[in-house]
């Protein structure tokens, strides 16, 4: 196959830069594989490695420092058949560390070529995550204080199934690259090279020294057996092919008349675990069965089964503009946690507000009408109090009718839960607490 090098834009690295060898080796590898330019995208980011995409007649995507792997993932997921080659420097590996870890863990079929020359060539030779502590670089003494990163060990522990470490001066570099590109999964080659423009101005580094250093390091030669697994895109498509299309929620038809005219606001004050939000849903759905407009706002802490849980519902025959609640028609007080968080509500109420209060729950002084009820005595578990209170409210013909409540429950629940919910609301009695 023909070379994919862009003859109009030959590599323009500093004289003696090992990147040029890598560019040529990559071209050789792609040609040996018989790939045409349209089957390949080179994704690069910032630094001298970021020049790579311009040297090739392939698809190209050049972006921000350290982010090449993110663009590459999006492209590969959208175009699974494309060969995605990512070039990054040791600088990009540092700033894009999270993306490297994610790529290793994910195992999407990308090939990452790390052009590791132990410093930031483009900005003046500052230290990178791979700069040796004893090196003299553009960051004065700072690199002496930080331990360099072994990219290959990191990649292995992060789950990369193919990790190779080699010199950019290897004669069989094209084969090395080809193997990585052919690998069905995430592959990475940590290619050690020389930056004559910056690094070797003050540090001695030759192909021979690189070979000696590599020999002194743990070898990485490709496949990491313990990390071999299904390629991400393949796996994703496999799982997804079994999924059924989801339809948008069906509309609920208006079949009933609401028991009261005008806008009605209900506040359910409970604690986490009392199924407050579900009861709010049911109340809203009951509104829909009467053709009312509804809004529902919930307020709860991030903790599960602890802290307040509040649902604020508005039902109205008119469009609901302001969705805040200032003068509720009904407050259901189920737990002190919820009451405490909305205690400012109680002082402003008059007798037109009905408070359904469960026995044992203290509320602030108020002019509202209070309806006390002992749901415990009626045999209700604490997590059923909210729904039972809606039944009480409906029995009183406040806000919703009992028919609306029943219809809502049939919309929200199915099967056994439906049966027990219907049973539950039928059991709730208006019996006032003595």
């Amino acid at each position, binding site marked *: 196959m023909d070379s994919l090098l862009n003859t109009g834009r030959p590599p323009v690295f500093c004289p003696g830069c090992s990147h040029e060898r890598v560019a040529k080796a990559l071209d050789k590898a792609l040609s040996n594989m018989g790939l045409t*330019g349209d089957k390949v995208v080179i994704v690069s980011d910032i630094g001298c490695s970021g020049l790579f995409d311009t040297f090739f007649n392939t698809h190209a995507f050049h972006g921000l420092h350290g982010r090449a792997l993110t663009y590459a993932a999006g492209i590969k997921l959208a175009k699974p058949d494309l060969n995605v080659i990512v070039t990054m420097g040791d600088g990009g590996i540092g700033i894009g560390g999270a993306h490297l870890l994610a790529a290793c863990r994910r195992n999407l079929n990308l090939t990452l070529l790390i052009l590791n020359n132990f410093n930031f060539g483009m900005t003046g030779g500052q230290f990178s995550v791979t700069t040796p502590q004893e090196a003299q670089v553009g960051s004065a003494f700072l690199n002496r204080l930080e331990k360099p990163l072994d990219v290959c060990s990191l990649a292995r522990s992060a789950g990369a199934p193919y990790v190779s470490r080699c010199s950019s001066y290897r004669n069989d570099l094209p084969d090395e690259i080809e193997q990585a590109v052919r690998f069905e999964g995430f592959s990475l080659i940590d290619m050690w090279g020389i930056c004559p423009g910056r690094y070797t101005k003050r540090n001695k580094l030759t192909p021979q020294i690189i070979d000696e250093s590599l020999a002194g390091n743990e070898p990485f030669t490709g496949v990491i057996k313990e990390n071999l697994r299904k390629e991400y895109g393949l796996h994703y498509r496999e799982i997804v092919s079994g999924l059924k299309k989801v339809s948008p929620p069906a509309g609920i038809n208006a079949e009933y008349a609401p028991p009261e005219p005008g806008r009605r606001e209900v506040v359910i004050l409970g604690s986490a675990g009392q199924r407050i939000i579900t009861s709010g849903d049911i109340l809203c759905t009951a509104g829909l069965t009467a053709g009312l407009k509804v809004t529902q706002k919930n307020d709860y802490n991030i903790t599960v089964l602890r802290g307040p849980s509040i649902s604020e519902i508005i039902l109205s025959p008119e469009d609901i503009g302001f969705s805040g609640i200032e003068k509720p028609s009904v407050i259901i007080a189920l737990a002190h946690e919820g009451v405490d968080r909305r205690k400012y509500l109680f002082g402003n109420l008059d007798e037109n507000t009905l408070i359904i209060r469960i026995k044992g729950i203290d509320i602030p002084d108020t002019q509202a009408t209070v309806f006390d009820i002992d749901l415990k005595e009626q045999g209700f578990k604490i997590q059923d109090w909210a729904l039972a209170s809606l039944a009480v409210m409906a029995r009183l013909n406040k806000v919703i009718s009992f028919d609306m409540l029943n219809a809502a429950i049939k919309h929200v629940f199915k099967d056994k839960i439906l049966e027990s919910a219907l049973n539950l609301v039928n059991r709730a009695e208006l019996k006032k607490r003595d």
Partner: protein
Amino acid sequence: MSSCLMEGNEAVAWGALASGCRFFAGYPITPATTIFNTLLKIIPPAGGICMQGEDEIASIGYCLGASMAGLKSMTATSGPGLSLYSEQISFAIGSEIPLVIVDVQRLGPSTGSATRGADGDVQFMRWGNSGGLPVIVLAPVDVADCFVLTMHAFNLAEEFRCPVFIASNKEIAMTKESFDPDALIKPAIIDRIVSNEEKFFPFEVKEGCLVPQFLPIGGKTLVRQTSSTHGDDGYITTDYNVISRFQNRLKNKIDSAAGSFAFHESFIEEEADTLIITYGVTARAAKAVYDEQKKLGRPVSLLILKTLWPVPEKLIRDKAETANRVFVFEMNMGQYYGEIRRILPDKKVEFLGRMDGRLISPRQITEALGNG
């Protein structure tokens, strides 16, 4: 009549699917997470991809890659995540990558209050990029808007090849609301214009056009994309004439079209002295005040802006023409107030803002107007 119950975030997700969105990537953050949750259920079975990124930078990066490979893409976050998007937003602007970004605003600054609403990112969405070139920002008022404006956002992203923001707010995003899905006025779907030229230059614009034609990365024709300052061919350039032409085009392609997508609702009363200008969730309280004052025989006019950027200057001037006084209400310390003052230098422009996690109420508006 038949109604659905949905929160704003769910409506954004369904609106995205209806627009042809087939790629979503996001990082969990309250109050935007339920967009991701919903899309994870509905996009993969529709043949698309939904990803959870390792962070926000990655999430938007996946979207940029996928968009350039031809998929309509969206990401969603809140203020802290928007901060991390910044470098990639600049990329999408400068390199003309279609993308919808949902910012479900929460009370800031910084991590602020995750479950309290605000409209505190209104200037941040516009200016949170390097270079300062224009973006498009649409602001929904309710659940129906969340659906429909998301569709418009995709259309505008495709048409102008730029990032388009949905400026949502926790108070809309996580408030469930009834709406009639059959009553939605959905726009026709617009797709990016695909080139059929034999010799393709990724950033070349045809005579009389301001937006380049598109070909996906991965197709038969080679495509270059770059975050560097580039010429028509997608290679870096130092030619200041080319650069200047390019920067001006990026500005003009949005600014010159501003009048064609000035989404709004207006209720102008002839005998009204005062015009209320507002947007987002605050518009709901303002509408209640408008209704009430009209009933009481003390009418005020109301302009609800649903396109915030580019600022619909002509619309605002037209609607304010007969008003002596303009009052701006917003859930921040006066971010859009400055724009209105700039556009209406001859009017008395007043402002009331609130940034404590609570809604601006109809009563507050009425009191501020002095009509109480």
